[in-house]
């Protein structure tokens, strides 16, 4: 039997060395009966990538409903509470106008319709995320596949990540989220959060592990949201990027956002 107790005895840091030694000596006196190996692996169906990215093409969203569907898909899948007020608000994906999504890039002569047009915004899963850099507990971290992940078990609620994120992508549970959830209409396969932790879009890490696309992508009109590995030249994302001119939010900050926006809707011949 494989003995990999290091995993098991990683308790609390204190006394670890003494503890482990002692346990190796008297290891057989617990009532577990036998030493237990802990072995786990990635699910084979996990979607693999070096850096996940998404292309948002708002022109594919013809109606408000198209957008609402996406937001609902995400928020319902992840039991995101709906507080109905901006103070307690928690949101993973939402819309805002051009001026706010791309501040500083608006021009006074922008088309009125364009001014009012909603853009879907979410976590950018940056190449160099400021949020993970500042998190004092590694509660948020960048996975090898590029997802900026949240560990709700570890988050201490210091909200440094919120101050650091230049995109306002992070939400804090100012109150017990269950008070703002319809407890009869929960996604029973996904947890809620507890009060006092930060949350945000995780590119549906739990769905990726099942070989699925993120919930928003599935709910979006065809081509509205394109998801894939930006490192893979043959991925849908790369194809979409090759097709058209896209911009990112605040690239000048150097965080390397991985959400690309198709502005203007029409396909252009880039280059």
């Amino acid at each position: 039997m494989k003995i990999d107790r290091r995993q098991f005895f990683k308790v609390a840091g204190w006394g670890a060395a003494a503890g482990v030694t002692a346990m190796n000596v008297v290891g057989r006196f617990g009532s577990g009966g036998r030493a237990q190996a802990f072995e786990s692996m990635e699910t084979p169906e996990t979607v693999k990538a070096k850096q996940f990215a998404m292309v948002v093409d708002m022109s594919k969203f013809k109606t408000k409903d198209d957008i609402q569907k996406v937001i609902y898909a995400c928020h319902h899948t992840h039991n995101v509470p709906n507080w109905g007020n901006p103070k307690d608000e928690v949101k993973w994906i939402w819309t805002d106008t051009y001026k706010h999504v791309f501040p500083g890039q608006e021009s006074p002569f922008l088309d009125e319709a364009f001014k009012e047009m909603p853009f879907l915004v979410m976590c950018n899963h940056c190449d160099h995320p400021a949020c993970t850099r500042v998190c004092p507990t590694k509660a948020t971290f960048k996975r090898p596949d590029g997802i900026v992940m949240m560990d709700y078990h570890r988050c201490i609620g210091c909200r440094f990540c919120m101050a650091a994120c230049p995109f306002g992508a992070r939400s804090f549970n100012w109150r017990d989220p269950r008070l703002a959830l319809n407890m009869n209409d929960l996604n029973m396969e996904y947890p809620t959060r507890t009060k006092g932790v930060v949350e945000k879009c995780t590119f549906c890490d739990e769905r990726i592990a099942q070989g699925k696309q993120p919930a928003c992508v599935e709910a979006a009109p065809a081509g509205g949201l394109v998801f894939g590995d930006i490192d893979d030249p043959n991925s849908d994302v790369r194809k979409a990027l090759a097709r058209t001119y896209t911009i990112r939010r605040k690239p000048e900050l150097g965080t390397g956002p991985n959400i690309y926006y198709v502005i203007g809707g029409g396909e252009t011949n880039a280059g």
Partner: protein
Amino acid sequence: MLDKALTGSKLYWAWVLFLLVLVGIGTAAYIKQFNYGLGITGMSRDVSWGFYIAQFTFLVGVAASAVMLVIPYYLHNYKTFGRIVILGEFLAVSAVTMCILFIFVDMGQPMRIMNVVLHPRPNSVMFWDSLVLSGYLALNLLIGWANLHAEKMGVPHPSWTKPLTYLSVPWAVSIHTVTAFLYAGLPGRAFWLSAVMAARFLASAFAAGPALLLLLALLVRKITRFDAGKEAIQTLGKIVTYAMFVNVFLLGLEFFTAFYSHIPEHMASFKYLYMGLDGHNKLVPLMWTSSVLAVVSMSMLVFPQIRRKEKLLAVACVATFISLWIDKGFGLVIGGFIPSPMDHVTEYWPTGIELLITMGVYAAGILVLTVLYKVAISVKVANEYPAPLKGAVEEAH
């Protein structure tokens, strides 16, 4: 020595009791916040840090200011500060205690606070801040207590405090530098993204801290037999003067950079703070109060004739302190969040519960300060005035 804090006049006990009541109220308010969540405060998704973190930031400065006594005394052998260096060290202990408490009450999940130690991320500034703050607390408590203990015993300061004292000098600078880095290293927060942030922090700290210390020294002289000495107080006044001017100078640099360059996001927060933005102007009166007080204090401090009059000096120090408290304990942190990275303006104002908790933390800090000062002053006074101590006879009346 701790027993010194357990004997005192009726006034002392009334004061301690008063503080305990405030701590009790603050605790009750905190329990309410703990059960409800931080939503009970005025903070929101856009302004995600508020009064607590602002107070923390301000108090780090107060703590760091002890170094303004330590440097002249230990590094330059400036004996005049020998009598009050302990007051500076204990003020630092109290201030850091409050810092830690403010961080604690600001946590969404305070029971996981040990995660910072158990799962440290060394490139997080907050990790370093927790290290330097607790280190600074330990240093000051250790040095202050050990030296005081030696004084009580009537023996020379233990030699091991010497290297620790030297260590405490860069350490003091580091606590405020690291705290400044909490802000100065964030992309997308133009208001904070400034190279002079740490310098500004230190300058304001070295004005506000010594100003408070000066006021405390005057207060201590009034209610106890311990006198810090005229010269020490004057020197402190000078330190406040220089630091205040440097501070305002650095603030001026920020203004220049923002407004001469005319980059919108660099100007936005300043506009919000001093003029209001998109019709939002909750902080404008406060910021102008701060500015006016800064001007008042500087125009008083700059004249040695005024400074030499202790009453006026005290007034100037009060002005300095309040000005900087508003600037750093409010404007600097809140201002950084307004407008939000998506250019929305969400205003912030602390709620009642938030203020009660803040009051509780301040009361706890002042309690720590009271106890430490009581011990220190009792020891010093007993050393200096062994003559007829007030006995039980007088106390009974």
